[in-house]
């Protein structure tokens, strides 16, 4: 994926969706609201990125020494410092950093190949996206259906099972859970691959366009690649999706139970509406309103979970990248990734708020 299309993907698509949304809902207040939110998001991202910039430099350890190791001489260190621009005064470095962020250029990585961060992110980010989107869908599906089921069968076996499930799954160490899945479906049953995004040999036949292999293989009509990408996606998705689903089951259950106490539920029953329709049609939709907000807040947890899942399944995404670069004290990479994450979280929470207003006709901007 080229850096330009990467930026389009991460910023352009959400913005386009929002514009579409404005077009549909179209009130003046809504436009103002979105402008306001975007207006507030940018300084927030900026402040956070600046904070990370200074924290990274206050933290012990530095990228030069970390990379050089024991044989590095002071001279070599000096060379490297110059090459990386770390010899400049902090304020100058900060200026460069701001310029890099504003131009969405992000500068070059300080370790490894010293490649432009934008290149590295445009390779890694689509991988993370390809993991967290299906995992979130799975988590939501289990969470919503399970939560609604538990709420409607309150204090029955299904409810107890789902409550135990949500507690157990929530407290499961993701590492252990992923390993168990690998051992069962990979080593024992030989059903699914345990590592990577796609079969390495098939990968050589796939021309990456978006770096999301599902999409790339679909575009190019490379069916074995699609099959391989899907089969590689299953275990990581289950791992991340199931672990996240615990929270969603709990949240949905509580909200559906609360909603089921509402007068309009009693009123719907009094009109002879089927219990299934009452629970899944009336209660669930209303319960989803607060749940949607909470989902927005889960994005951070999702990203944290993605870090671990990516490590376990050797999924070359942003999570592993961030961890690797923090330990190498790769200032530019960490700053840029955090700024990117912040932007992402802000955009997602804005999108969630808009979905909220779609679900809840009472919300008017």
């Amino acid at each position, binding site marked *: 994926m080229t850096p330009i299309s990467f930026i389009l993907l991460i910023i352009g698509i959400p913005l386009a969706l929002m514009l579409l949304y404005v077009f549909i809902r179209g009130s003046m207040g809504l436009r103002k609201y979105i402008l306001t939110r975007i207006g507030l998001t940018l300084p927030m991202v900026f402040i956070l990125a600046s904070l990370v910039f200074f924290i990274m430099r206050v933290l*012990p*350890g*530095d*990228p*030069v*020494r*970390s*990379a*050089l*190791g*024991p*044989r*590095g001489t002071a*001279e*070599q260190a000096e*060379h*490297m410092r110059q090459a*990386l621009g770390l010899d400049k005064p902090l304020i100058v470095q900060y200026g460069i950093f701001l310029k890099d962020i504003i131009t969405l250029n992000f500068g070059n990585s300080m*370790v*490894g*190949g*010293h*490649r432009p961060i934008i290149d*590295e992110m445009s*390779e890694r980010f689509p991988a993370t996206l390809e993991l967290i989107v299906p995992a979130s869908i799975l988590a939501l599906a289990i969470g919503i259906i399970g939560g609604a089921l538990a709420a409607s069968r309150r204090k029955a076996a299904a409810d107890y099972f789902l409550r135990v499930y949500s507690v157990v799954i929530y407290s499961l160490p993701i590492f252990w859970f992923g*390993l168990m899945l*690998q*051992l069962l479906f*990979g*080593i024992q049953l030989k059903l*699914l*691959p*345990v*590592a*990577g*995004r796609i*079969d*390495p*040999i*098939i*990968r*050589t036949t796939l021309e990456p366009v978006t770096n999301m292999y599902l999409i790339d293989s679909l575009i190019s009509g490379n*069916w*074995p690649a*699609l*099959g*391989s990408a*899907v*089969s590689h996606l299953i275990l990581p998705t289950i791992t991340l999706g199931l672990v996240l689903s615990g929270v969603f089951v709990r949240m949905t259950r509580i909200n559906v139970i609360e909603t089921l106490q509402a007068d309009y539920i009693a009123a719907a029953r009094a009109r002879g509406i089927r219990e299934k329709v009452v629970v899944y049609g009336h209660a669930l939709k209303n319960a989803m309103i607060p749940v949607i907000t909470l989902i927005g807040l889960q994005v951070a947890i999702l990203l944290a979970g993605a870090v671990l899942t*990516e*490590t*376990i*399944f*050797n999924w*070359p995404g942003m999570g*592993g*990248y961030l961890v*690797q670069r923090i*330990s190498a*004290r790769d200032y530019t990479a960490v700053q840029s990734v955090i700024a990117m994450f912040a932007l992402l979280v802000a955009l997602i929470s804005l999108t969630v708020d808009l979905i909220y207003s779609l679900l809840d006709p009472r919300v008017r901007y």
Partner: protein
Amino acid sequence: MKKKLQIMLAVLMVAVLALSACQPKSGEKVTIIIGVTDQIASLDPADAYATHDWELIKNIGEGLLVWKPGSSDELVPGIAQDMPEISEDGLTYTLKLKPGIKFGDGLELTAPMYAQQLNRLLTIGPSCPNDVADTLAIPYVESITAPDDETLVFQLKVPVAYFPQILADAPYLPSHPDKFPLTECVLFPEAPIYGVGPWFISQYTQNEQLVLEPNPYYEGERTPQVDQIIIRYFTDPQTLALAVQNGEIDIAWRFLDPELIDQLRGVADLTVGDIPGGAIRYLILNHTMAPMDDPNVAKAFAATIDRDAIVDTVYKGAATPLFSMDPPGFLGATDAFDTMYQSPNITLANEFLAASGYDENNKCAIELWYPPDHYGAATAAWMELIKQQLEAANFTVDLKAQEWSTYVTALTGGESYQAGVLGWFYDYPDPSNYLDPFVYNGGMGTNVTLAAEGSDYGEAINEKAQQLVDLLAQADVETDIAARTELYQQAQEIYADLVVTVPIIILGEHITYRSNIHGSDAYGAAETLNIATNLEFNYSTLTKTP
């Protein structure tokens, strides 16, 4: 409406199942997949200074001299017609190129082009981020010239006994002038990357995989036996182990933790090849800092270490005790520390300590440091063991951990740490590479010499240290093998007496591969896919049976 939805879902499910059932079609190509937890830091020969980078550079390229596959001590001509012609004073090395050496894209390699590319080492090398030049070129090489189309002349600054070995190192391999321009280092050139060796890099996705295909113009010894090699990059050793167990990769190369290796040994269809490795772990003592400035304390320290306990409990046999910094099998290697201290020898240790006034009631307190994030989880375990061993004698130990970059700066800067752990792997298999760095010019924090202006060796802190510096300097230029051996034997004895560093273990390397993968019987060490102590991995000797 509901029914439609159900049908759609069912169709979708079937489609997904059908797709995922599509077995990867390997087609006619025979492919071997090698998994590693390493990462590529640089592919520029003038810059790269990491084991994995060198492995790739040496497989896509070929040096003037190459190590014979499966051996650690036999250099043979590669793209050179013969072994180098060395002048009387040992300062001029002359080699002739074989005719018709071509890069993978058909570009012919001439001596002037080669010399020009090699000169990048001397010109831009030191300003490259990984900077191999400051270690392997600048100290030795005065100039590299090509008097004609087939001759290369290396003019050295000082006579260097082991220069042929250095010539086999990655920095001296020819690089493609299109990908590696004279004025800048290019760490990640766009694929395809062609060298003059058996392979070329046809595809590369960072952190995911690298694809090697045979160089159609290669005419050397190391002819590829398969159609494609894929290097797959892993972040977690556990996943690497699972992947080889599951057959998703054919070979699991570096690094698998000792416990994982232990588990994989019992798995059917897998072979674990043990390579007597060159990676050592040692403790560094700061000789300018109390109490390590007291020779008795340093000796007592050396006398307490129980290397067998570490090998057995932490490494489960996947390592070997090390009694000299010059590992066994290398020129002149002795068991100096064993001879001198017979460690563990608590009585001896306490005698040394008593000589400096430490006893049971007045124990010698030391701080021992390690980086928890750099050498794997095993480090913490065996550092704890060493603490126990030291405390069996009249030491009290404060075991401290510190993040890697801070740790390495403080330790090798000699600023604040009395003692700490480090690892070492050679740049070329020669005793000088295992002894000099710890002695010369501050000695990476051992401080048996102090860095001095205008001196390559530094200023020795005492007479014994001066003796050691002199012996090593002499050995560096001595070309007579017997004399050199003698010099190193003496040096190791003084080294052990000074306790410059404390060698602990030498780690074996392991290569785990599926049973349809074979090395070549034509070379040594077929069991380890022809990888010997020097860890030279020639992908060309690999074959795969269906």
